[in-house]
């Protein structure tokens, strides 16, 4: 598999019905680590993630990976804020991306079982996935996204409406994924989580990339007044 990164977006913009959802955005993603995407509600975090992932329509500008788009689409994964559960058992859900890639059933199930144990779902392999709790569903979604060993993983507020324990478990899965070389791009509402996970930060405001930088400097000395206000907990619009 050829390298996916760097990802370069130039003037990338997504519109729907004349309304700009996000953009124009210029950014460059490279190397390992966790990029955290923050910003007030409606700033376009979800739109930007799906635009980079390639599921939202690019109205203008360009988004280029270091390899052809077809390969790029197969080497990345996306975790939704509200996980989508296939109406199957836990293990069948996790094995699904492998089955799509024509991995033999036996091998796919074996790998899915290992992946399920890694995220702590080893005891519920044959449970019906749509009946799992919110935290369990999100862990399943993570295991399913990571099983193809994507080079880039997008996560749209993966811990929204989860309790502390589920959040702790999910964050440890994410840091483990970072350690194994996956590039993570994660949007979040939770500034505590942003501080815990971020290697670098993108601050989105009104559809535009307003401020960005390495986590160490961004959280201590944000350059723009809006980012400073947002980090202090003020309402920014």
């Amino acid at each position, binding site marked *: 598999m050829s390298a996916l990164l760097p990802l370069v977006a130039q003037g990338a913009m997504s519109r729907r019905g004349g309304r700009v959802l996000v953009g124009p955005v210029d950014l460059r993603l490279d190397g390992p680590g966790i990029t955290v995407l923050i910003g007030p509600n409606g700033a376009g975090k979800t739109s930007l993630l799906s635009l980079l*992932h390639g*599921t939202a329509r690019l109205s203008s500008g360009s988004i280029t990976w270091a390899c052809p788009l077809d390969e790029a*689409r*197969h080497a990345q*994964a*996306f975790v*939704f804020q509200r996980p*989508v559960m*296939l*109406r*199957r058992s836990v293990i069948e859900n996790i094995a*699904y*991306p492998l089955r*799509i890639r024509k991995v033999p059933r036996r091998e796919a199930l074996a790998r899915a079982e290992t992946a399920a144990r890694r995220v702590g779902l080893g005891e519920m392999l044959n449970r*019906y996935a749509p*009946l799992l709790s919110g935290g369990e569903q999100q862990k399943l979604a993570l295991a399913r996204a990571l099983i193809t060993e994507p080079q880039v993983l997008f996560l749209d507020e993966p811990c929204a409406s989860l309790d502390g324990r589920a959040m702790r478990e999910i964050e440890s899965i994410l840091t483990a994924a970072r350690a194994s070389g996956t590039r993570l791009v994660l949007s979040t509402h939770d500034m505590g989580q942003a501080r815990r996970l971020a290697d670098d930060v993108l601050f989105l405001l009104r559809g535009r990339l307003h401020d960005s930088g390495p986590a160490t400097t961004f959280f201590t000395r944000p350059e723009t007044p809006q980012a400073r206000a947002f980090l202090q907990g003020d309402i920014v619009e």
Partner: protein
Amino acid sequence: MVDIWNGMTQAVWLMLTLDPELVEISLRSLRVTLSALLVACTIALPLAALLAVRRFRWRRGIIALLNALMGLPPVVVGLVVYVILSRSGPLGVLGLLFTPTAMIVAQTVIIVPLIASVAHQSIRELWAEYHDLLISMNVSETQKIRTLLWDSRRALLTAALAGFGRAIGEVGAIMIVGGNIDHATRVLTTAIALETGKGDFGLALALGFVLIALAVAVNLSIHWLGRTERGDRW
């Protein structure tokens, strides 16, 4: 009341003694309808999934048409199939008229729209649920269709059973294209029509009860095979 009572006793008697003629007619009914169901499902289920997944120009029109054709009058279907299969018709050379195959064709035509419509409704809902995930995973169209068909299999079973119910109880079309020929194309419904016409209400009712029993038995066994209403699911 006497007629109904007579019919029931006669039905029980016919079934207990495994009356050879009754067995033959019942088996033919089953064979014709199950074959029609199999063919219809092979056409209707992928069609239903395709209509959910792919956006093309005539999509809405086809869905509306299928919904409308659910109420297709069997007599008219029988007539059209008759004309096509008759000796002077376009497929006359096949010599299919007044054979069980002709009956299978007619029943298939009748139940394809029904199965496709009912199946499409549930597949569409499932697709709305799965859409973002499958798009994100870059799943090919064939894989989408297979995933949707597999994961909505219980709803599809219901669609198939509705089709079975319509086909097994259908008399107008198969009477025309089959001709109700003894030992060749006589099935339960056409036999009932015949016996009623002859005034043999006892036998007609007996056949009717057998028909109902058959429909119930097939439904129950398919449910049992599909393991619906069991275990911790649904």
